């Protein structure tokens, strides 16, 4: 069967996406998993490009590969993880995992057979280019409020992530209320026994 280049490209990158997804789950080291996840995102971006979603394809690469996966890699490399302990039970649960994979994929693929919905076989060609139509749809009356809510959500995410991980400078001069309240008399007050000296011109009494 001869396939035209478009279908061939789609099949190749879909297969690479599935391979990368399997390697994310199965690889031994979390750093390798993160790199395979980057690879999966790249393949998905190419598939989206083949489906004429150019803007989202580039956003996937910029936002995910550029920002989110870099964050993942930083965190994985920053933590000193004992990988062997965390992989205990992988082999034990492997049959269950394969069973769940087969069941869920099988059920979903059966459920989305074309007889359950009307397919239009004609590939839609958008009139304007992709970014133009997304811009028109995103900034009209219905979508601009969710768009601003998304901005507020990102701001909240920034603030919470900073507040969670920020420890402050160690030399910062602020009150530590808990330390102050926990202090007892023994921490602060030291009674030293000093023998009294005789005044000049007097005999020492003892």
């Amino acid at each position, binding site marked *: 069967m001869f*396939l035209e280049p*478009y*279908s061939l490209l*789609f099949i190749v990158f879909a297969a690479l996406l*599935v391979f990368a*997804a*399997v390697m*994310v*789950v199965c690889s031994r080291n*979390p750093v390798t998993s993160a790199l395979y*996840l980057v690879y*999966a*995102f790249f393949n*998905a971006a190419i*598939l*989206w490009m083949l*489906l004429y*979603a150019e803007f*989202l394809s580039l956003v*996937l690469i910029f936002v*995910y590969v550029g920002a*989110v996966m870099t964050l*993942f890699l930083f*965190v994985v490399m920053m*933590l000193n993880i*004992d990988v062997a302990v*965390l*992989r205990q*039970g*992988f082999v034990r*649960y*492997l049959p*269950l*995992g*394969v069973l*769940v*994979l087969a069941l*869920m*994929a099988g059920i*979903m*693929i059966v459920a*989305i*057979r*074309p007889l359950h919905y009307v397919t*239009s*076989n*004609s590939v*839609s060609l958008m009139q304007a280019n*992709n970014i133009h*139509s997304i811009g028109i*749809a*995103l900034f009209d009356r219905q979508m601009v409020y969710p768009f601003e809510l998304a901005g507020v*959500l*990102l701001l*909240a*995410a920034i603030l*919470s*992530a900073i507040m*969670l*991980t920020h420890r402050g400078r160690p030399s910062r001069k602020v009150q530590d209320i808990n330390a102050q309240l926990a202090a007892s008399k023994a921490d602060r007050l030291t009674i030293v026994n000093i023998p009294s000296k005789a005044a000049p011109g007097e005999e020492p009494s003892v």
Partner: protein
Amino acid sequence: MSPVVNLPSCLALGALVFSIGIAGIMLNRKNLILLLMCIELMLLAVNINFIAISHFLGSIYEQIFVFFILTVAAAEAAIGLAILVVLFRAKHTINVQKLDDLKG
């Protein structure tokens, strides 16, 4: 019209990647950072479905939805990783089964 690239095959690809993500959550149930990665994989599968439906049914609003999903997923990843870092500082492990402080 391509004989392979149609809506059912794209949805099947999304279903397959989603199932791999769920199987990954079952397999790597101790490693918190791999759980986060599997959640990202499942979100990617959902986005593939949305893009395919947008393409084959000729509507742009699915792509808007994917845009919002990407936003929320980025926020989720940032906060999740921040919580992970704080957790590692406090307990020196990210093993999910060691997180039983509320057990009493």
